[in-house]
């Protein structure tokens, strides 16, 4: 089980994540939602060990991850929000590097990489530099890199970003299958329909604070709302979206 206890993160005077606590058990898929700037990516980056919390602790099976960060990272798969990969490397070189850094045996690693590239339709392009890849292609490489070592914990920060519809369906079903394999999955996204389908529990973050933490079914019955989209709107959207859209159209035409 992975657990956050009173975790906060401050950048200068700005508190981006404020006293966040939750736990995710094996086999559970946690949907981590919130509008832009809510602190989702910062939380995920703290969980990945890329940022140090200003306050609070992150525990894996009851142990602070900082006590043995290397052991924690060995069990971690991470798909970042931005497709930040070395652009001069090819997908094959990049995945070989990641696999080696994770100490995977060479022969099965090569087979695995070629297998992943086949499934994601990148076999033909896997030797070209990633600078020439589309966003979706890079995302597929990042997803492959996160899965290469069969991790126990998966941090997925906007994994569907740039993916085509078919690959999106594959990832959706993959998350379900990995949950069935008892993986701990934290899934951060803006696509509420997919989140509703794959997540066993939802956390909604707003301005660094948790405003909801329950299963989708419980949230629906508690708030008497039919869908996650409406729950989300009720909790974090304080602006009439129709009026905002109308203002944008008016501005485009120069009449506002």
């Amino acid at each position: 089980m992975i657990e956050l206890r009173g975790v906060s993160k401050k950048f200068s005077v700005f508190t981006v994540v404020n006293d966040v606590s939750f736990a995710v058990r094996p086999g559970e898929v946690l949907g981590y939602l919130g509008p832009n700037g809510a602190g989702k990516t910062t939380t995920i980056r703290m969980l990945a060990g890329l940022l140090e919390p200003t306050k609070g602790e992150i525990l894996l099976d009851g142990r602070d991850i900082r006590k043995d960060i290397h052991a924690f990272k060995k069990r971690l798969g991470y798909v970042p929000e931005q497709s930040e990969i070395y652009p001069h490397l090819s997908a094959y070189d990049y995945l070989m590097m990641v696999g080696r850094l994770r100490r995977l045996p060479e022969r099965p690693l090569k087979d695995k990489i070629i297998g992943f590239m086949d499934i994601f339709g990148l076999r033909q392009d896997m030797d070209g530099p990633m600078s020439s890849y589309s966003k979706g292609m890079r995302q597929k490489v990042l997803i492959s890199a996160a899965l290469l070592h069969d991790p126990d914990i998966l941090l997925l920060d906007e994994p569907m970003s740039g993916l085509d519809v078919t690959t999106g369906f594959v990832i959706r079903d993959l998350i379900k299958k990995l949950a069935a394999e008892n993986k701990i999955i934290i899934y951060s996204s803006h696509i509420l329909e997919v989140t509703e389908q794959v997540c066993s529990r939802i956390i909604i973050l707003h301005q660094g604070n948790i405003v909801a933490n329950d299963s989708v079914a419980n949230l629906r019955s508690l708030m008497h709302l039919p869908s996650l989209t409406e729950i989300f709107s009720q909790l974090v959207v304080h602006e009439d979206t129709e009026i905002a859209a109308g203002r944008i159209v008016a501005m485009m035409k120069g009449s506002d």
Partner: protein
Amino acid sequence: MGFASRSEGASEEIAQLGILTRHFFTRLFRNDLVDFEDQMKARLVAVLAILAVIMGWSSQLLIFFKYELSPDVGISWQEKNYVFILMMIIFGIVTLLEFDMLFPDRRDFANLTPLPVRLRTVFAAKLASFIAFIGLFSVAMNSISSVVFSIFLSQWRSNSLLFGLRYVFAHLIGAFAACFCVFFACMFVNLFLMAILPSVLQRRISVLVRFVLIAIFLFLLMSFLVDPGSLSGVLRSLPRLKDHGSPLIFRVPSIWFVGLYEFLLGTTDPDFIALARMAALMFVLSVGVFGLACALSYFKHYSKTLETEKKGSRFRFLREAIAGLAQKALLMTPEERAVGAFFSKTIRTSPKHRNVLVNGLAFGAALVMLSIMANRRNIQALAPVNPLFLAQSILIVLVLLAAIRVVVDIPAALESNWVFCVTEAAERRRYVSGLKTTILLQWLLPLSILLFLVHAPLWKNVATAGFHAGFCLALSALGLEALFFRYRKIPFASTYVPGKLQLQIRGVPYLLGIIALLAVLANLDKALLGHQGLFWAFFPAAATLWIILRIANARFLDSHPLIYEDEPEPAMIGFPEN
């Protein structure tokens, strides 16, 4: 399409060209190695000011004592020639160093492709901004020297202010023509290769061509600055050649433009008039071939864009199998193999890193050429008892090590470093050990083999050549450990900006230290080659020292974390306040 809509389209394209040229010109003041635009601007202004002062000062030194009291009776063309040669060399180096700026990069494509801008407009704007940027160097180099020449030399022909201004004008036109002739010629070579060769081959060959050209230009520059005597013979013979009407004088490019200079001053000397015609012809020719190569490479890129083509090699599996076996035998752990492959791939595929390494190696080659030229009488023996000759091999080793040390600190893509952070293992020593082993195997060992192959037939003694190569390899290994002493980074994965403090503060002591070290090492090599039995004591001693350094570095890494974000060096150093 009607005339009106065509002219509207043309005026829109011209407007876009102006906007893009300004945009690209501003972007030339930013680069990946410098944090802030202001920092880059300050650095560029400093370089331009230094160039202006150097050219002005050398012009003044050349003509002050000669023409302050005695008149210029048509002989000042020799000094003008000297200044033009220096200027053309510097301009050639600047052109070759900045050559890559001519091409739209990924960011340009990402941002401009969706816009209604023609690719030809982007290329034209890149070219215009690049010429403007390069032109700054030409303006800087001539700003003071043109005035100096005018002040000291115009008085012997006329006291009129207008003639003084005409002198400045003639100097500027002659110098700009000379500089841009070099510029167009250098660009032609690179663009022509780009136009005629397949991309993969061109990338490989252009690195070599760039290396050779930079090495030659640097050698000529250093010959001028460090050892003027080596070329003064050539320069001294020019007046005699001119007096005897030798056609050889038409083979010295700088004199064409001196001819143009004198022609614009109203000379009646038929030689200068002929040289001016030659200058005009060569300038037009250089612009023509440059334009042709530009058009050819443009059409090549128009159909393919600048993205790299997919590669498919028939020998890939064989090559991979051999490389895999070698890697497994020499790089024991996966982390070592990962860092080793990352180092090799980055050097091979990242133009930024490759260019820095090529420039460094070209500098080393130029130093060796200069040293050989300066000591050509001593070195004629080319014998293993000549420490000056032995020093050349050691100098190449040191330059290669220094260039690699600089290159590994240049970040590849800082935002991508997270992959090393999330996979970092407890055994940090393996990352650095993988890097060092790779450098040793891929660069230093082949260099030693090359040195052996050069010296064995030269000395006709395989054992001596073998010992010398072994000595260089031992030095390389020790130098590698010394230069990476307490190094705790993954190559290309730290924010460190290289060379800020070191060059300004420590540059001179470093240079003196390297010269002293070279002398000591060359004499040690000579002594050992004289008593080759001593090598059996030297090699174990070097190996012991190497092992001690390796262990010390490994222990240091066990207790210190890897650095991803280095502390920036202070931009200014002041005395502490009481």
